[in-house]
């Protein structure tokens, strides 16, 4: 297990290194001179020179890359050009919105998808199953930002149960903050729940056909007992895979959803940074999101290997 973990860790480090090169080259090398790019055509030569100095553009690309990476390792993500504040501080502030939102959505989609998927699998071939499968088809086809707008129309504009957007912060306790995150989390969770429910159903149907489930039934367990104690556990592996993969979709989805609800999260930060051509912020936040995705993949791999020793040999 330790050897497996070490091997995965080495490949995690390599992925991160390559990803950082890709991000650096795309954002700092491709536009030519980032300082001119960020300031636009009409900038004065003095302003460009000042920004060039701040970005360290007089150094070669290799030195700049190394100082960017070592800076990030120390927690120094550079200074935002438009806000004149350290990017690290901005990211930490925004994480208090994005991370709870992602976790809230993940919790919602799991809470909906597991029972629904199990229900459909145990009633396979009946009207329940057909209905669930139809509903999940629809769930996958609905763009989450459109669903979000419909939620706003119904629950914010007409019923006035929630506000249509904005975020009050956590200083008044978790109540108002969670309330503001509820509609965004539902919108974010819907397509994920639909996919997860389908995976849960088909994984469970596959394991229900296995010999060990028949043995469990033969030794006198009821259908429900066999499902709960034997089939469900074994169906969890594909479900966990999808759950891990969904994390990256939740992060990406949050970029859109935060914009629908005007939530001051990472997604909105990166989006505003693009329109302000603040490449320093774009670069660091993209790298951070990629880091999160790679890290989650690594953790899911480890979790599998802990659960199923057969997977360690790969």
């Amino acid at each position, binding site marked *: 297990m330790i050897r497996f973990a070490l091997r995965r860790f080495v490949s995690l480090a390599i992925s991160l290194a390559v990803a950082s090169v890709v991000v650096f080259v*795309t954002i700092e090398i491709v536009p030519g001179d980032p300082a001119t790019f960020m300031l636009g055509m009409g900038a004065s030569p003095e302003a460009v020179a000042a920004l060039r100095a701040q970005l360290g553009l007089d150094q070669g690309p290799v030195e700049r890359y190394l100082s960017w990476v070592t800076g990030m390792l120390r927690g120094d993500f550079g200074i935002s050009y438009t806000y004149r504040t350290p990017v690290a501080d901005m990211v930490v502030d925004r994480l208090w919105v994005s991370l709870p939102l992602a976790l809230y959505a993940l919790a919602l989609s799991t809470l909906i998808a597991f029972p629904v998927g199990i229900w459909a699998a145990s009633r396979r071939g009946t009207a329940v199953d057909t209905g669930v499968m139809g509903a999940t088809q629809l769930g996958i086809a609905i763009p989450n930002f459109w669903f979000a707008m419909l939620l706003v129309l119904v629950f914010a504009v007409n019923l006035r149960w929630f506000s249509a957007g904005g975020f009050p912060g956590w200083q008044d306790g978790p109540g108002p903050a969670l309330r503001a995150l509820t509609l965004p989390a539902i919108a974010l969770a819907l397509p994920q729940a639909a996919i997860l429910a389908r995976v849960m159903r088909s994984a469970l149907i596959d394991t229900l056909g296995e010999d060990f489930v028949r043995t469990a039934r033969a030794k006198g367990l009821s259908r429900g007992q066999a499902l709960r104690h034997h089939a469900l556990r074994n169906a969890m592996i594909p479900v966990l895979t999808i759950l891990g993969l969904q994390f990256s979709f939740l992060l990406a989805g949050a970029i859109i959803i935060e914009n629908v609800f005007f939530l001051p999260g990472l997604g909105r930060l990166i989006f505003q940074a693009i329109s302000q051509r603040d490449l320093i912020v774009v670069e660091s936040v993209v790298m951070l*999101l990629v880091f999160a*995705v790679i890290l989650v993949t690594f953790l899911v791999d480890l979790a599998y290997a802990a659960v199923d020793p057969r997977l360690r040999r790969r």
Partner: protein
Amino acid sequence: MRRLVTGGAVAGLFVLAALLSFLWTPYDVAALQIADRLQPPSPTHWFGTDHFGRDVFSMIMVGARVSIAVALLAVGIGIGIGVPLGLAAAARQGGWLDETIMRGNDLVFAFPALLIAIMITAVFGPSATNAIIAIGIFNVPVFARLTRGAALSLWTREFVMAARVAGKGSARISVEHILPNVTNLLIVQGTIQFSLGILAEAGLSYLGLGAQPPTPSWGRMLAESQTMIGFAPWLALFPGLAIVLTVLGLNLMGDGLRDLIDPRTRRSRA
């Protein structure tokens, strides 16, 4: 089979609307008729009009062009680059080429499509072309993996052995014997990626990172409708329905095609 026909018919309807829009739309989408602005759906304007008095039905027809073209070209990029990579990886299974291609795939998977799009637009500015590239890049590993996986099992089959014994090189075997046998899978996956592409394009143009004004696109119609949703909900309703129906149609078509090609999947669908 029923799903294939239903799904194909629904998706086909939008393709037809997109093609028809080149020849004819009920109203000119470039003409602003301020006097007719924000009219609810009526017999003259089936889906109502927007804040510039443009006919929403006509805009949806023209918007279908962008959605379908972006998604289709992105699938083209995915297949065009991903399939050769997958074939090459399978032909050199376990070698450095295979290893490099597969690790490259993993790397792209770490960048969600939206993040790729954001990096590209941050540097090159927003446009439909950049949306195609971003979604296309994301499609590459999907097709590369699928092709490699299917090709690996084909390489152990007798007819491939026979071709080897006959002295054919691995490149020729890949093209003449492996590729024709993975085409079915590629068609099914292509349909699925097509529908994902429609969703991704809608998301990008909602954020303003896709096709630029004055070209109508479904995503931007939704973005513009957001501030008016309280008093002109039809502006948000119809473009959204267009997206849902297109994606639903394509997904049904993909499921139907999969069942047609591999009847075993009828047992348990994911």
